Each structure stands twice: as C-alpha cells, then as structure tokens.
C-alpha cells in the first residue's frame, strides 16, 4: 500500500500571498487517500504539471484511482491586483485597452477583465516562468530561435512597463501612456511590435509585445474562471458557445446557427440568482 504520510513538497519559490488558488488546490489534493493500487511510493498528491518534487509512485495490479485527486483547474480568485502596482496597473489597462478597444461590436480588453487576468497569471506559476527554461548563457538568438530572454514573464512585464513609460515620458513631454491620445498610443505600440522602438532595461521590444498580445487574447477568450472574458462577452461576440461537450445532434445541421448561450466551467449568467 502507498504511504499516506509522504510529505508534500513545498512551493520553493512562491512569494507569499501569490499562490491562493494553488494552495486551495493543494489542500484538496492532500486530503485524498492513498492509491489502492500503489504498492509503494506516495499518495497521489499530484503535482500534475511535470514539476520536480512530485512523489515517485509505483503501480501494479490495477489502474489506480484515488479519492479527492481530480486535477481541477486553478482558477483566479479575489479582487484587486496582487501583482501590478497602482502605477503599473494604470499602464497595463491603457495598453490592453488599445490592443482590444471597446465598442458596440464587443467588449474591449479592459471591459473583459484582461488586466485582472494578467495580474493573476503574473502573480502565479506563469509569471514565475513555469514551462520556461530560463537558464544561461543568454546570447542573442535569431528570430527563429524564439524567446531568449533571461526574464520570467513577471520580470519581463515589470521591466517592460517601466521601459514603456520611460519611452513615453521622454518622447511625449513627460506624459504617461494612459494620457496619450489613441493615435499616439497606437504609434508607440506599433513601434514596440516591430522593434523600431528600443526599450531600456534589457527588454526585447518584440518579445515583450508578442507575449503581451498573446496573453491579452488569452485573457479575452479563456474560460471566465481565470478572471478574464467577463460575462463571456468575448465568446458571445464571435459566437463561440464555450465549454459545451456534446454537439452530436448539430453535426449534420449544416449552415444552421447553434442557438446555445455561451457556458463556462462555472455555468453562465442566469443559472445563479443574483449573477449578471
């Protein structure tokens, strides 16, 4: 039988207070009993994400199953910013508001909650560089070699926001990004996108822009449990019905509009009294 007294590896590098969603999940997992089919090793206190420090296990005699170990997603919780300082928040809200502006067609990135999504991502594993290799040496690579910064995403955002504000201050009479008129804001963003604007602080402009745009679209279109795509308005705008699981009866109905309202992992507005 598996030992149920196996120590759960601690998060070695998590800043305190930034791991709320994960801690909840860990507690949930730790509560599980030992795998019946395990003949040695530890309970399935799974760090399911390829992290070192997950307990080695041995299985023989059956497919194992353990109570309380479902690998449920680590959603975002709370309100307010954990990662961004007030100054950074003002910058990032203004920037993503230009990447996806608001109008009658659909929500802007700010209205969809993208800044909050980015905050929780940067405060958590993604921000720390989980699933990034950040070891040296760090010579400059070719475009084909992709991301070659020594910065984790959290470090990159922090350095880049400072550098963007530095550029804007120096080139727009001391203004900050949030005070720029739309055309100037877009010109600055296009310069960062193309690399024509060189950012200071060791920030590769194109790498930062590529990450920011990708993360903005993630916050705009991912399941609302991660803090963005507020009210699934981005899904509504394009006509994506969300986390539906069975379309069998629609497969052969060519050209018909599927009338389902979008639904996320937590359901949808209207399922719970008092939600909007």
């Amino acid at each position: 039988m598996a030992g149920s007294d196996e120590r759960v590896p601690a998060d070695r590098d998590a800043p305190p207070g930034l791991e709320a969603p994960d801690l909840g999940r860990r507690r949930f997992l730790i509560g599980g009993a030992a795998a019946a089919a395990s003949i040695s090793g530890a309970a399935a206190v799974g760090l399911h994400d390829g992290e070192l420090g997950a307990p080695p296990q041995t299985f023989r005699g059956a497919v194992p199953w353990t109570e309380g170990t479902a690998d449920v997603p680590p959603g975002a919780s709370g309100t307010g910013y954990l990662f961004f300082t007030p100054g950074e928040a003002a910058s990032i809200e203004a920037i993503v508001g230009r990447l996806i502006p608001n109008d009658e067609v659909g929500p802007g990135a700010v209205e969809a909650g993208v800044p909050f999504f980015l905050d929780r991502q940067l405060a958590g594993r993604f921000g720390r560089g989980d699933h990034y290799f950040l070891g040296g040496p760090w010579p400059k690579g070719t475009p084909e070699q992709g991301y070659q910064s020594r910065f984790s995403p959290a470090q990159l955002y922090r350095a880049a926001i400072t550098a963007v504000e530095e550029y804007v201050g120096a080139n727009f009479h001391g203004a900050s990004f949030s005070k720029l008129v739309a055309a100037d804001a877009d010109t600055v963003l296009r310069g960062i996108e193309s690399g024509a604007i060189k950012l200071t602080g060791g920030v590769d402009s194109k790498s930062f822009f590529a990450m920011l745009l990708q993360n903005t679209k993630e916050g705009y279109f991912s399941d609302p449990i991660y803090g963005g795509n507020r009210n699934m308005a981005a899904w509504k705008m394009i006509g994506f019905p969300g986390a539906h699981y069975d379309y069998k009866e629609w497969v052969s109905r060519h050209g018909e509009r599927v009338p389902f309202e979008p639904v996320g992992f937590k359901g949808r507005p209207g399922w719970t009294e008092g939600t909007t």
Partner: protein
Amino acid sequence: MTTTLKPVDAVLVGFGWTGAIMGQQLCDAGLNVVALERGPWRDTSTDFATGFAQDELRYMWRHHLFQNVTYDTLTIRNNTNQEALPMRHLGSFLLGTGVGSGGVHWNGQIWRFLPSDFLTKSHNEQRYGKKAVTDYDLTVQDWGVTYEELEPHYEQFDRLCGTSGRAGNLNGKIQPGGNPFEGPRSNEYPTPPMIQTYAPTLFGQAAAGLGRHPFPHPTGNLSQPYVNPLGAQLGACTYCGFCEKFGCGNYSKASPQTTMLPYLMAKSNFTLKTECEVLRVELSADRTRATGVTYVNSAGEEFFQPAEMVVLSAYVLQNVRLMLLSGIGTPYDPATGKGVVGKNYAYQTMSSVDVFFEDKILNPFIGAGALATVIDDFNGDNFDHAGLGFIGGAYIAGMVTGGRPIEMIYTPEGTPAWGLEWKHAAAKNYLKSFAISVHGSCMSHRGNYLDLDPTYKDVHGRPMLRMTFDFTPNEHKMSDYVTDRAAEVARAMNPREIKLNRRVGSWSVVPYQTTHNTGGAIMGANPTDSVVNKFLQSWDVPNVFSLGSGAFPQNAGYNPTGTVAALTYHAAQEITSRYLKSPGPLVQA
C-alpha cells in the same frame, strides 16, 4: 549512492503509445516488465474529466499536459554556422510527458504510409533518376521494411483503436468513398467514418468537382462505441472540438488509457513507475550488451535497474539523446557523413489556406481531432513529379479540429493583429471561416541532424540534445506546389476570399507546426547507414531496441502514429517469436 534493484526481463524507458504496446506484447509473452515514466500518472476520470477538459488556456497555452522545459529542453539552430540556443518555451512542437504522453493529447489522426514511402530512395530513383534523390544534398534512404510486412501490424493498431474510416483499397480492389491511393488493406476499418460537418463537406464537394478523390480522414475519434480485442470500451465522439493538446474526457479518443491500460495494468508481471527519469543505459565493459538502466526519481534517489532487454520507448528526441549519452552506436558527423546516431532528423512541412465565406455558418467549434475530408492526390508519389524539381508530397485536408478562440480565429489577408480592425474581423469571420491544412513530407538532408549540445545542460547535469534543422529547397518546392493545389480547391468552394499561408523561410521554433519529429535513430538494411535494423534492434547493442518515429529514415506526408505503432507491433512479434528463444541480432549485419 545508487541502489541496485532486482533484475527484470525487460525495462521500458518511457510509457506512451510505444511503451504500452511493447509492454502489453512482452507481458503477454510472460516477461517480467518494468516501465519507467518520467512524468506523472494520468487517467481520464482524474486528469481530463469532461467537467474541466475543454480548457484552452490551461492545456494548450499553459502546457499542462506537455513536457516542462524548465527542467529539460533542447537547443536549436538552423545550420551548423549558428550557435544553438535553448528552446526556452514550447512552440513548433508540443512534447508529451506522463503516462500516455503524446498519445493522450494527440488528434487521433491514424494513417498508413504509402507502399512507395518505404522505398523513398529506390522508388524515386527508378522513376525519376538518381538526381531526384540526391539533389539539394538529400540523404533519403529505403526503410528496410515494406508496406506488405507492416500491413498486419497497421491492422493490429486499427483493431486496438477502433479506427473510424472507409477503406479505399481492400486487398487490391479500389473501393468507392475511400482513399484510392492507399496500399491494399486486408480489412475494412473497424468502425464507419465520422459524420462530416459543413466545412469538410463543402471541401469534399469542391475537390470532387475538380476531379480529385475526397474521402473521410481515418480517425481515432470514434464514430460509434467500440470494444477492442483487449476488452477496452470506447464511446462515440461528441464533436466537442478539444482533441489536439487535450485529453479526451469522453473515452472516445484512442489513447493508451482508453485502449490498453485497463488490460495491461492488471497484469501481475507488469510494473509501472512514474516520476522516474532514466539517465543512461548501462553497457557491459565490451559495450556489446546493455546491463540495464540508471534512473533517478523525483525524490532525487538514484537506482540501477538491471534488465535482460532495454526498450527505448520515449519520444524520438529522448531516445536519440539516451543513445548518445550512453555510447550506443556511432554519432553522426555532418562534415564527413560518417556515423549514424542523430542522422536524418526530419520533421513535417506544413502550410494552409484559410477560407472565408460571406454567409455560410460553419460552426467551427463542432469539431474533432481528425474530423476532415481529405484528398491524397498530391501525396507521396501519387502524382507524376517529372519536371517539378522535388520528391514527396502532402495530403490536403478540409479539416475542423475545433474552434478554440485563442488559437483558431482566422482573419483575412491584411488584417492587423490587434486593435478595433482585428476585433471586428474576428467577430465577423469566426463562424464563417476555416483552414485547409496541407500536411507535407520532409525529406532527410545531410545538414539536418541531432547531437549533444556542448554548452547547455539539463537539471541532472547532462548535455541537452542539439537539433540542427532547416527546410531544404525540396521541401519548399513541394509545399508551394501542393499549397497551390489546395488553393484551387479553396477557390472552387466559392468563398468570399482565401488567404494562403505558405511555408516561407527557415524553420522557426515559435509558431506551432506539428509534433511530428522523426529520424536520428533510423532503421535500415545495414549498420553503415542505420542505427537499428528492421525490427528496431540496435546494430551495436542487440539487447537494446529503439521504438518510435526516430526510426523513420525521412518523414512521409502523413501523421506518424499509425506507422510508429505498426513498427512497434512488427518488432514485438519478432522479439516474442524469435529473439526470446535466442537473444542476439535478428538481422545479420
């Protein structure tokens, strides 16, 4: 300190499709087998249940089921004049890890290679002359195994998965509705094809109108419930659109979990150890025999597992790296062309054509990993290459794997990547667009290879694998030619507009292309130009077998898993019927 464990008959290094298939075959033959998997245990009910499986952010973009490159990655460069740098983030290919590995998050596209694909050198040389197979410094080879030898084993894999499709060639007789170009099949598919949604249907009609030969993509996303020979039951696919990069919560995508593990895990002579990474294969003093493997578990404890037979059943990149780290075979040197381990690394040449309608609602979110109507008219040697300046080809698929909105929003030519204009294009086109996929072969080339990196090391202090790769003019010409053929079908669908996404420039690690890496541990007829024989047995250390797509001497224009599985069954049959009675070389050098 290294703890020596009790000897076993066979140790499997890695536990995805090939490890599971070989494990089952060896256990059925009565061997005591231990599988070492460096990732975690994973199963449907716990790890990708339908209540949370359809999560694009977590699985696709946060790489939840993929290899964590924080601890182990490789270095990359386009040619030997460049300095290889680490792949710091997954992009071009999405490496698997954990029980089932890539077999969990694949699309379920199940293909057989063409009979002529196994004779890349001799067939093309005979038809087009010697220059055709040596132009551009190509180093293509024959496989040393034929389609006819593999056919019963392709069949075994189809029975295991319950593959849904329609035969195009039954024992030499061409069948209506199937792929008329395929090699002869001994049997019809176990289950009928999936039902096609609107976009693949329109694609098929347009292709037929041009005189092409459309057929439903053969798929491991099952069209109906199926019980396989091991007693595992699969359910009918619900077309949820979350196959590739995701685990199936519905037991309707063939994977080691859904087809084999209930049977294999119950066997008393099979043991699986997870979070155990093999560091190297240990050899006898004269280097002619493997004595077992040394591995370290996630608690940092090191073990030596003695074994009569070592089966490398990890992904191609790890198998090749372990051979190089363990001193099995002679490393390939691109300067001299001598040596074999790492030789002929190849990939897949991908391009696409986006199709935009003004008024047709396609509902792209109704999808499945292999939901497509395909034409094979321009794959392999299914068409005359005379005067074209390339060999190889691609299938063209009107394919809808899903409509996951972070990844799969198509916008017309000239649309900016952000801003109001992008948002309006996304809103306007999402329901009315899809992509035609051009899935091309990749020939082997003298300068494309794998070796050990001189600078970068993994968490265990071992050199990373170094990948040197670029597309050759052969691949660019092939891809342009077949992409033009795909555009003809696209235009015949009478859309508002189309957008060609050609294969341009050098290979880049950034955009996702496909996880079809091949070569480096190639098979062949003799040890001077191959690493393993036709039974995937090392020429140098005959109790080591290297499974998987590393054996491909070059890559054909199809998804590799069907051929990977068939080669594994083919090897297993020879091991259990001949090798176990008299361990030693199965082919005399």
